[in-house]
């Protein structure tokens, strides 16, 4: 199975040097092995955390699309996550049948993406970040001030999805559900990177002038990027709510949006492997700190990490790994 086209291989020495085709196949097998190993050899807690990592990876993929690839700094991302989560949570009390919900989340996410994108089209930098931040604050405010419906700042519980023996809050079931979502999202993102839309996003990110001179429809590209980010985050949020069983506004506030940003930048913007690394970081490390009894230390580390990465390794861990591999390659020769 051709994983990397010949032409690209010939012109990418790093991939040539590491035997990319064989390497990629090996990577896929290794990942599949890890995926099987987790529920077989590890306890419930580990499996549940793994499911969380996958859910957060999907959401982070969304931010990577709009920020890592298209260059629009969205501080509203956790709100899209929350949109999906609260859609799931409210489906119970509002009596929305299960089969409609995916379409509903899609619809809400597309709407949300457009609503946030439109005011930001002519903005960049601080203004863009501020407007998306305000959208985030508005979402937070809406939840906090709708006590009767959503439980306000106290949050609300979410009844699981039950279809026959399947229960979304059961550990293995959650793992499978999250895996399906993560697989779909990752494949979609990989396709995006090879498509004209993906190229357009890179062009818009790096130079709007060059984009215009190429005929790239800048407005269309930005809006599409926001919509995709909202859909990914919304879908992840929907699964999150049904897996975790509880939603509250603090999971979807400004700090949460900043954590998603940490994930994208730590891992490496624009790289799928980077996104997964970053998502693993923002899920696993807080758990680690919780376990050793210092829950407040994570934000310190999160902030510090963001600063350190920005200063020393702006391309994230993936860039670091590539530098190391390049050094090793040179050493071997």
């Amino acid at each position: 199975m051709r994983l990397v086209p010949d032409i690209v291989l010939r012109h990418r020495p790093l991939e040539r040097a590491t035997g990319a085709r064989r390497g990629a196949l090996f990577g896929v097998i290794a990942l599949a092995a890890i995926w099987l190993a987790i529920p077989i050899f590890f306890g419930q807690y580990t499996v549940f955390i793994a499911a969380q990592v996958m859910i957060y990876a999907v959401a982070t993929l969304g931010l990577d699309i709009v920020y890592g690839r298209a260059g629009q700094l969205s501080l509203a991302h956790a709100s899209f996550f929350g949109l999906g989560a609260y859609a799931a949570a409210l489906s119970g009390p509002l009596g929305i049948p299960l089969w409609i919900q995916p379409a509903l989340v899609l619809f809400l996410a597309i709407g949300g993406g457009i609503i946030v994108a439109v005011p930001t089209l002519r903005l960049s930098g601080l203004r863009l970040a501020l407007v998306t931040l305000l959208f985030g604050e508005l979402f937070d405010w809406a939840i906090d001030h709708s006590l009767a419906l959503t439980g306000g700042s106290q949050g609300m519980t979410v009844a699981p999805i039950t279809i026959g023996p399947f229960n979304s809050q059961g550990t293995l079931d959650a793992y499978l559900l999250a895996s399906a979502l993560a697989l779909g999202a990752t494949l979609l993102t990989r396709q995006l990177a090879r498509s004209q839309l993906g190229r357009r996003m890179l062009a818009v990110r790096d130079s709007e002038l060059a984009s215009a001179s190429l005929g790239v429809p800048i407005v269309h590209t930005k809006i599409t990027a926001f919509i995709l980010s909202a859909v990914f985050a919304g879908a992840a949020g929907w699964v999150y709510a049904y897996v975790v069983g509880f939603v509250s506004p603090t999971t979807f506030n400004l700090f949460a949006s900043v954590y998603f940003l940490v994930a994208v930048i730590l891992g490496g913007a624009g790289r799928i492997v980077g996104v997964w690394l970053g998502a693993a970081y923002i899920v696993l490390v807080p758990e680690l700190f919780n376990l050793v009894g210092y829950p407040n230390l994570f934000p310190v580390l999160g902030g510090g990490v963001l600063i350190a990465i920005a200063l020393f390794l702006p391309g994230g861990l993936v860039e670091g790994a590539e530098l190391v591999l390049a050094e090793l390659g040179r050493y071997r020769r």
Partner: protein
Amino acid sequence: MTAAALALDGVSVRFGGLAAVTDVTTTFAAGSLTGLIGPNGAGKTTLLNAISGFTVVLSGRIAMDAIDLTPLSAAERARLGVMRGFQTVRLLERETVFDNVLVGCERLPQPHLLGQLLALPDQRRCRARDLAATETALRDLGLLPIAHRRVDELPFASRRLTEIARLLVVRPTVLLLDEPAAGLDTRDRRALVERIRAYHEAGGLTTIIIEHDIELVRQLCARCVALDMGRIIAIGTPSEVLSGQAVQQAYFGARSGA
């Protein structure tokens, strides 16, 4: 795509109080290769900006064959095949030479969004086509050896050639080059001249080149338009234009010439 004639009628551009281009009327025949010359500040780049849509014209009309370009945006004109190179070379800095040229495949027909994301056979065909076109453009300009390098690590000449490759990966209808030879050494210059001439011989391209390199203009261009202070002061073959009194005066001052 067949070549298109470019017609300018009474084009004027002002920046505040400054008249950058005044009442330029001329036609660039389909398939022609025209040099645009003149001293610094004559309005050459502004004229190119006006044609490509990056500057709004105060008055006048710009038409490509039967299509009136004047109300169209820069992106819309680019989609019609008006490709513009920048004096300062505009690239995607964090990407490789290969990806920079690949982006130029924008104008080729692509599957719609869902098709792109779902890896349908149509999408795979288009991608293969795009990759092949990119490789061809890179080979033609001698960029294959450095195709994998990031453009922000490359010397100016390579960056210039990368931008030109991006412009040419899909045949333009009108090609606008702004001092393409600046910063290139003799060998690269010769290669560039060959390339442009080869593209023109294959037909289907109308080119306007702004150049200060008189030799290059003589070699390449059958026709020459000279600007000074925003107005056309001479049109003709390079020899005619360059020996004419008006151009001599503009370049060298009133003391020279007859």
